[in-house]
């Protein structure tokens, strides 16, 4: 078709503006889909913060609060669980494994968590990933500490470095357990979970650094040195929470009810998965804002395209008049301009998809390593195809605007070739 070839040559003659328009659309599409991918990735990473744990127990409180302090190291426990109660619950027949955790101290803003070495074996994130040691090993000595990847990176710690734990949760201004320093025995690999921001020590160590303390302060005149405390028995008196794995998932609600109704002490048991969902629905409003911004960017790109077509329209009135004179109907001219808009849009969307996947393949490992955000590379979902179809449709609709203007101009110009 000569008409289409000439229309194509006309567009090719304006290739620079056309390319820029396509690029603008491509970047906006890439942003829109990218935000969607990051959103899904963030949601998944969030939901994958803790896996393989069937129940988390703590002193009676709201489910969100318990999840926040036990998994995300945010906020404080309302109360502790006594060691006696812990041991009794640990006897429940459904339980496959149970790992106690004890919170309350900090190190330069990072939470210190007392636990057992089993924690490193039992904790799972991103469904099946176990914690891995980048360097060193779990704590063996009483004053050994295992630090998360962020702690090591931020504070520049190496294996064997000595660190002092502060009482309480601030980064400064608190009393420090400087009489009983710890030694870094292991550094965990990056996980993208709050584990990265945690200093892990043994439960006994937590007991040891508080042995000459009472009610949050040193007992005056009474000081027990680090060497002396090594010889003492250090049974934990209380813990903050415990992670539980069950032999069979079927027992989860029975055990949860049993714990919630535990008589000797008010306790709460939560299912981490469902509570994570609940928490995401709270923080998820930010993702709506993000999506709104990327929609605005797409709208801007479409407006840019209309502007481009409109500005070239004047110099193309000659084209229109010639086409009209050889017998083109105004509808043909309308069609050519809409086809041009459609071509630009489809090319932009196509390029946007290509750029997105290129960027995903290039950056995925880096994002995972640095931000602990795992963005799955998978084909576009039906919902995303729908958005893209909507963009193409909107683009063609906006393309009608200059097309109708050209139509009107070509009617008004009549036989005159305006230049």
């Amino acid at each position, binding site marked *: *078709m000569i008409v289409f070839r000439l229309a194509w040559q006309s567009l090719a003659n304006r290739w620079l503006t056309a390319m820029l328009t396509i690029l603008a659309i491509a970047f906006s599409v890439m942003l829109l889909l990218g935000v969607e991918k990051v959103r899904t990735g963030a949601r998944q990473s969030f939901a994958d913060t803790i896996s393989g744990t069937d129940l988390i127990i703590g002193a009676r409180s709201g489910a969100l609060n318990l999840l926040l302090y036990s998994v995300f190291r945010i906020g404080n426990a309302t109360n502790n669980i006594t060691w006696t109660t812990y041991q009794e619950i640990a006897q429940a027949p459904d339980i496959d494994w149970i790992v106690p955790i004890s919170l309350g101290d900090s190190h330069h803003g990072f939470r210190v968590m007392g636990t057992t070495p089993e924690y490193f074996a039992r904790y799972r994130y991103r469904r099946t990933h176990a914690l891995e040691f980048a360097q060193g090993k779990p704590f063996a000595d009483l004053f050994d500490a295992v630090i998360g990847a962020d702690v090591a990176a931020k504070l520049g710690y190496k294996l064997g470095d000595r660190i002092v734990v502060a009482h309480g949760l601030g980064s400064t201004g608190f009393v420090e357990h400087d009489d009983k320093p710890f030694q870094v025995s292991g550094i965990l690999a990056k996980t993208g979970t709050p584990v990265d921001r945690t200093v892990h020590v043994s439960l006994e160590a937590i007991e040891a650094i508080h042995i000459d303390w009472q009610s949050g302060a040193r007992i005056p005149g009474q000081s027990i040195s680090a060497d002396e405390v090594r010889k003492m028995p250090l049974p934990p008196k209380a813990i903050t929470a415990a992670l539980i794995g069950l032999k069979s998932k079927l027992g989860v609600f029975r055990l949860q009810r049993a714990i919630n109704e535990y008589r000797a002490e008010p306790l709460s048991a939560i299912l981490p998965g469902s509570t994570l969902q609940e928490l995401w629905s709270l923080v998820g409003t930010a993702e709506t804002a993000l999506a709104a911004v990327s929609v605005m960017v797409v709208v801007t790109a479409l407006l840019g395209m209309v502007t481009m077509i409109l500005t070239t329209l004047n110099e193309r009135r000659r*084209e229109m008049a010639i086409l*009209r*004179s*050889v017998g083109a109907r105004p509808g043909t001219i309308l069609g050519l301009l809409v086809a041009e808009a459609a071509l630009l849009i489809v090319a932009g969307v196509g390029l946007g998809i290509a750029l997105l996947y290129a960027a995903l393949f290039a950056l995925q490992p880096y994002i995972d390593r640095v931000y602990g955000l795992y963005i799955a590379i998978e084909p576009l979902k039906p919902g995303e195809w729908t958005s893209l179809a909507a963009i193409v449709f909107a683009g063609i609709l906006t393309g009608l605007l200059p097309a109708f203007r050209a139509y009107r101009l070509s009617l*008004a110009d009549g*036989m005159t070739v305006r230049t």
Partner: protein
Amino acid sequence: MAIAQVKAVTPQAAPDIVTMSGVRFAWPRRDDFRLAIDDFKLTEGERLLLIGPSGSGKSTFLSLLAGIVTPQAGKIDILGTDIARLRGGARDRFRAEHFGIIFQMFNLLPYGSVLDNVLLPLSFSAERRKRASAGGTAESEAGRLLGKLGIAPSLIGGASAASLSVGQQQRVAAARALIGAPQIIIADEPTSALDRNRQQAFLDLLFEVVAEAGATLIMVSHDESLAPRFSRVVPLGEIARITTGGDAA
């Protein structure tokens, strides 16, 4: 009775191919310009020169004649069809079928090749396509016309129209107007962008190919010195009455 009059002045008694009567036209949203054509005829095979300065309604007259605009009242009978009664699409097809148009300048789509520019009208008229390819292919017919009009064969396939000189562009436009042998050739000041020598050369060629195709030529110009070459010369003001307040170039 109008026919009787015409017969009286044309010895060969050739039929009228255009009859305009009682035509009233105003551009939409331009109240200050009105054009009225009470009676205008064009006879088959004529070489008509309409003389008129700019602002005399030349473009409007030609737009009405070619059916690009329709009058608010009146009759425009072309080859037995009242195009004022035709709907938009049919009028466009009619124009593609029966008219070849040459503008003052900027006749060609600058990005396209010479050949594509010449073949363009055939996309809109099956009849002209058929006629153009009667003796071979439409491409060979385009080549023949261009050759006759003095366009070197090397320019036809490859060169983009924008690389041609103004004179060459006008000759390519003439080839486009004539391909597929439309009955009426409209030329709107086709020589005004050319110098005197080239004007004569262009008109020689144009008359030659128009005669060969057996077409009727209607040309508009402000240049009265061209008059001797035409079979009839009419001041546009005698045909089209304009009531005006503004410009109507």
